[in-house]
């Protein structure tokens, strides 16, 4: 189903795994060379800079061509912008298929750009046709279908994330529109949908036949965990209930949503550590911040600077003690980076440090507190 040559993609994966195995000393250099010779990868897959450059160029070309045609046929475009975009979306998809038939590109920027432009243009066209709010359901449903086809064809992770969001919105608006008592069921409906998605994609990711959709499936698993948390988060349930469903006051079963808001991120981290799975682990760590924000939105437990200080000491402390505990690898965990750490990461780290930790440039004698970009005291002299 993929637009790419499967055996070439396999050779690419084999090549990557061979490099990793060689870097860790599991196979000899001659073996690696023999494997690479027997499984050459002839796909055109340039580095990230060329890729970004080609994405920009591709998107620019499509937009400029559209602009050119629009200048020539301004009347028609004004009368139906939706049709114009939709037709161009189909043309862009045609261009993608034709291009990929002749050239063995893979994530070169051209296929990325054309895929995203297809999704974007068809989406804009559909949005223009179905602008009426009551037509939310068909819009998100159709977008999910179009996006799914693109994902199946190109295994693009960005489109996969958008498909997931469209799917969530489709379920949400269908429930609001057609299911009685939706206002009480909605969180659980969305949680069930997210959980089902997560387990489905986890199973798929372990199977060999979906090996080329690995990144998509990782993104979708992350999205599933995130939306499961969001659907049960007290702040979101409260606010969406007010804005979307017109419910007032506290949501029903507040204790349930509070428990979910606070207990779910550590549960994710535990799940990630138990199964040695990076996705729940990273998601859990990220969502800890969401849990903190949720609590702070409703209860001022302590002033922000004390919270930051204690939180900072806690995080740094955890990092230090885990590092010491795992000085020699235990239980299958280690603190050593894998071989993929490279020169680029060091340079990037330097730039990030310069950006976030640089004290503000000196201005006319106004006193600024350096050492962090967070809550540094402002000048002004008023207390």
């Amino acid at each position, binding site marked *: 189903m993929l637009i790419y040559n499967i055996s070439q993609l396999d050779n690419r994966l084999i090549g990557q795994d061979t490099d990793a195995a060689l870097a860790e000393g599991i196979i000899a250099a001659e073996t690696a060379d023999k*494997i690479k010779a027997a499984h050459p990868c002839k796909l055109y897959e340039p580095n990230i800079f060329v890729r970004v450059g080609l994405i920009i160029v591709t998107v620019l070309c499509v937009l400029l061509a559209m602009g050119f045609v629009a200048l020539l046929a301004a009347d028609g475009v004004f009368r139906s912008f939706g049709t114009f975009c939709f037709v161009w979306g189909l043309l862009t998809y045609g261009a993608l298929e034709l291009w990929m038939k002749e050239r063995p590109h893979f994530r070169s920027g051209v296929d990325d750009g054309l895929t995203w432009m297809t999704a974007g243009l068809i989406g804009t066209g559909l949005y223009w046709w179905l602008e009426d709010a009551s037509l939310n359901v068909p819009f998100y449903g159709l977008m999910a279908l179009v996006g799914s086809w693109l994902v199946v064809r190109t295994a693009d992770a960005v489109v996969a994330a958008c498909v997931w969001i469209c799917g969530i919105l489709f379920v949400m608006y269908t429930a609001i529109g057609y299911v009685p008592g939706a206002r009480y069921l909605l969180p659980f409906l969305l949680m069930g949908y997210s959980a089902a998605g997560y387990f489905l994609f986890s199973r798929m990711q372990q199977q060999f036949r979906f090996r080329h959709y690995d990144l998509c499936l990782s993104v979708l698993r992350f999205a599933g965990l995130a939306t499961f948390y969001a659907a049960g988060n007290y702040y979101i349930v409260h606010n969406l209930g007010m804005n979307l469903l017109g419910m007032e006051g506290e949501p029903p079963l507040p204790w349930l949503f509070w428990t979910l808001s606070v207990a779910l991120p550590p549960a994710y981290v535990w799940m990630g550590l138990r199964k040695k799975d990076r996705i729940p682990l990273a998601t859990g760590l990220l969502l800890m911040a969401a849990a903190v924000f949720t609590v702070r939105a409703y209860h001022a437990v302590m002033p922000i600077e004390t919270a930051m200080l204690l939180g900072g000491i806690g995080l740094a402390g955890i990092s230090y003690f885990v590092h010491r505990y795992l000085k020699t690898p235990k239980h299958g965990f280690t603190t050593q980076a894998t071989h993929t750490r490279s020169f680029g990461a060091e340079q990037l780290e330097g730039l990030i440090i310069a950006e976030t930790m640089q004290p503000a440039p000196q201005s006319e004698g106004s*006193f600024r507190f350096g050492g962090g970009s967070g809550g*540094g005291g402002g000048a002004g002299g008023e207390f």
Partner: protein
Amino acid sequence: MRPTFIRRLAEEGLLSEAERLRLEAQSTSGLFSLHWELKTLLYLGVLLISGGLGTLIYKNIDTIGHQAILAGIGGLCAGCFWYANRHKPPFTWNKAASPNAWWDYVVLLGCLLFVSFITYLQGQYEVFGHRLGSATFIPMVVLFCCAYYYDHLGVLSLAITNFAAWLGIAITPARILTDNAFGLEQRLINTALIAGLVLTLAGIASRHFGRKAHFAFTYYNFAVHIFCIGALSGMFLVDGGLIFYTLALAPALYFYYQLGIRMRSFYFLLVTLIYGYIGAGYLVIYGILQAWDVLEIGVAYLSILYLIGSSIAMARLLIRLNRKLKQDAHL
């Protein structure tokens, strides 16, 4: 490696029995690395601590008193440098490996605290009076010394940023375009060009004299951006400055292009191409606009055609360059 691939390679006779067994062992029970998670936690922790501490001190300045704070910062700074000196690697003009991630952060913390100390002195007691240049000069010198002494790229980036601050401009990635009043102060544009030039010379000197040659990339990186953005701003904003700044831009682009080829670094080739593209595009559209009386709406058509054509040409140039550097393409 996936078990199916291991089986396939073994069947094709490409793996020895020992290698096959090792690969299978690794695929079922490799070590799980927590390196980046721990490092992120540490970094966030340090950020939160510094932000929280700053706000806490600011809010309680009356009860704590300036001298106590100064003493605190000074003491902590001294402590950091003492620890750093105890565990530092032996000094060499080549790249010195850092003992561990914590040592890196301690060095960074020490330098930041020192800068805060000087800033506080200046802000509270006006130790340097109105000579703000001196207030930034001393931290800059100290930062450069620390960067070389401890072989720390992060501190070097801070030092270069302080150098630019000393020259009166902000050159970190996000603020380079918003904080600079280029339109109002041609002096700033020329300062940017000078800064870029000095940093380029610093980069050349590092490699030529072999003094921490791996610092050269950082020098060149900051230099190319500040110089090109300054020159482009000069082209766009300074009345009658189009020719002068174009003449300033062109040799710089040529130099960095050659540098990219010599260092086999696609990054510099790309950056030069992008800045060159922007400059050339501006010149062409400016030229087309001069003929507005004759062409009128034709200006729009010509401009769009130029943009389409030039972007395709850029893409082909990028692909050709990439192929030329294919083997060694890295940052």
